[in-house]
């Protein structure tokens, strides 16, 4: 009796293992022949429901192209799956949402279709802002359609500033002075939060300070310089605020952090233009307390900004339906209909048409007490400084940011040693991956 049960159990286990293996083997994505109707797989972490609806609208006018919208995880999670599929040689989607910082990595390893020289490239050149075009250009090639951008701005609690008798700062010097003043007046409130696990905001703020720490020449020569004056300027501002405990070091996007956002723990949140939609989803109850102002400047009266976040959608070179995929993206990201609906989902648009449309510019933002926020944010987009590049392996570099710089942020220490340690790990990883990495300018 016992032995029969054991055999049954073992047999069942074996059968299950086989089923699992078979299931792994059959997830091969789209493989329909390209002559008839095709189905494209689109990996994105935009809301699956609304995005699928949008894709269905496309199919109405393009009956031969169906699009299957799949949420394969957000950012890093999706890249992990994408890397695994690319490594396995099957299972990769036709189109993937890829953030700008990760784009060079996939472009240089030739996993993405280079659009330059095609009609799609001329569409991108004519319809998107120059700043957005720069973000999808890697080593002279155009590798994706901009989907949304994140020019930075300062979201702030106007109720707290009023209580403290302050106006939103226009320069970083003023920001630092206000940080001391507001915490003195309101001991529960800090000027802002520096998330130890957020390399994106840190690098964007370096960008805004005029830094160019990462340079790639050709596809293999990389220069890393986190020891330049602009980075030091950034580091000394935030080191000072951290050492004086005028800013917090909470981990962002946690329940605790949102709790702090709602409770007035942070007076400002300096981040990308996409912020209001996330805020509305999490802390709509404070919508009458928030407003937006341009990001503080290093030089009084200047207009220098940077991008933080934002995504592109790219066609994978492994796709058997590249032409159809490009056709879909052209419609989704650059057509009047597609782009407008993406904006309605809360994405900040990269298309010139929308950025100049009076109805969009004058739309009240419900999260920011009905402020005409788009005017401020569109100006921020125009002010984005050219010349910034991400590493061809920024995904890894970002993953170890918290080990070095993030560690110093958590400890409330000077950030220079952390920056040096981060540079060291960036250099050694790059060399081990076959790049030729130099430090210094």
């Amino acid at each position, binding site marked *: 009796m016992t*032995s029969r049960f*054991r*055999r049954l159990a*073992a*047999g069942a*286990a*074996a059968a299950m*293992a086989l089923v699992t293996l078979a299931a792994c083997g059959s997830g091969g994505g789209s493989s329909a022949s390209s002559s008839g109707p095709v189905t494209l797989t689109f990996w994105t972490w935009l809301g699956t429901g609304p995005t699928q609806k949008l894709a269905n609208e496309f199919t109405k006018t393009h009956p031969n192209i169906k699009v299957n919208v799949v949420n394969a995880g957000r950012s*890093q999670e999706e890249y*992990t799956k994408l*890397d695994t599929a690319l*490594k396995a040689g099957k299972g990769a989607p036709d189109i993937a949402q890829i953030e700008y910082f990760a784009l060079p*990595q996939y472009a*240089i*390893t030739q996993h993405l279709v280079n659009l330059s020289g095609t009609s799609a490239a001329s569409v991108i050149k004519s319809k998107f802002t120059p700043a957005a075009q720069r973000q999808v250009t890697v080593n002279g090639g155009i590798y994706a359609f901009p989907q949304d951008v994140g020019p930075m701005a300062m979201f702030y609690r106007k109720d707290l500033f009023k209580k403290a008798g302050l106006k939103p700062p226009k320069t970083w010097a003023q920001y630092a002075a206000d940080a001391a003043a507001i915490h003195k007046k309101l001991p529960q409130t800090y000027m802002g939060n520096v*998330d*130890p*696990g957020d390399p994106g905001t840190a690098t964007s703020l370096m960008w805004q300070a005029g830094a160019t720490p990462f340079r790639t020449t050709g*596809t*293999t020569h990389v220069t890393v310089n986190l020891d330049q004056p602009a980075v030091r300027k950034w580091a000394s501002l935030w080191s000072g605020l951290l050492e004086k405990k005028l800013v917090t*070091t*909470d*981990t962002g996007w*946690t329940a*605790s*952090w949102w*709790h*702090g956002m709602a409770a007035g723990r942070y007076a400002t949140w300096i981040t990308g233009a996409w912020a209001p939609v996330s805020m509305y989803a999490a802390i709509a109850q404070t919508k009458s307390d928030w407003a937006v102002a341009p990001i503080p400047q290093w030089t009084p009266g200047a207009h220098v900004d940077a991008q933080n976040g934002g995504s592109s959608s790219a066609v994978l070179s492994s796709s058997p339906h590249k032409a159809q995929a490009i056709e879909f993206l052209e419609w989704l990201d650059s057509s009047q209909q597609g782009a407008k609906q993406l904006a309605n989902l809360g994405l900040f648009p990269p298309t010139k048409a929308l950025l100049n449309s009076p109805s969009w510019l004058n739309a009240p933002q419900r999260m920011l007490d009905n402020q005409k926020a788009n005017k401020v944010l569109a100006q921020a987009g125009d002010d984005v400084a050219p010349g910034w590049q991400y590493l*061809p*392996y920024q*995904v*890894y570099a970002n*993953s*170890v940011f*918290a*080990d070095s710089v*993030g*560690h*110093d*942020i*958590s*400890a409330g220490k000077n950030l220079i040693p952390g920056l040096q340690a981060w540079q060291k790990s960036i250099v050694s*990883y790059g060399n*081990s*991956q*076959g*790049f030729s990495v130099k430090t210094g300018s």
Partner: protein
Amino acid sequence: MAVGNAVVDDAAVGDRPSGARRRRGGVTGRQGGVTRHNRVGYALFLPFLAVFVVTIVAPLVYAIYLSLYRDQMIGGNVFSGLANYTQALGDSLFLSGLSRVGLFLVVQVPVMLILAMLIALAIDSGRLAGAKIFRIGVFIPYAVPGVVATLMWGYLVGRQFGLAGSISADLGIGLPNFLSSGWMLATIGNVTTWEFTGYNMLIFYAALRAIPVELYEAAEVDGAGEFRKAWSIKVPALRRALVLATTFSIIGSFQLFNEPSIMQQLAPGVVSTNYTPNLYAYNLAFNGQEYNYAAAVAVVLGVVTVVLAYVVQLWTARRERVL
């Protein structure tokens, strides 16, 4: 814990046939019966073997194969011999993670095992009111998935609106920040102790139940009290169970992953990507695309674990011979 369970299964499968053969050898004749019995034995064994080969042996062999290559973003896949291993043995990030779990092992495991042993002795003493409820109560944390347990504790000790935060703020007691770098390892130790004390308690309790009652009776005749019985009969009887529990705990410590990985979400500047060797291998493979090097790190980690577990077994076996 998967490894622990595999060990249990393994032992069961290994013990059963030999015992059966011994018994049967006395009853049935030798010829004919043995070959038929063997055939049935193999048939019964085959499904297990198939699953074992597919799920344990094949991945191991593949990991070793991977660890001998180096696949670069620029330059492609090349055979690199033992280069990954020499790199791992000199990799300060890997070694610091290894020494961190070593420290964890030396501190957390004794605390947990002594606690589990005391609870098992208390339940076995028969003097506890509501012993059954107590037993299941101590065991229940083991049934809570590690991820949930860690999240729960993360919230309990969190600064913003956790219990520790509230106590700090409302009662004015200056509790330390349990998620800071000085306290993190202790916090993780606390979570794992909470999770696994009940499991180890059950191992000890089962060993205590296996002690023949005659021994106690004899001791009582000799005038031994409860404490004397516990010290002279029960604790020595726990030695084998202790070796088993220690072996599981060594494996568990070196494979520490869930708890630090969740804590990393709560305190990324504190729990680094190389906090434990497993976390390091994970980050290398899935954020760094260094599958080959990650495989080498995993193999080295596996060897270290096996050696340590073996040393514990050897050491206790020698002690047993001496005693």
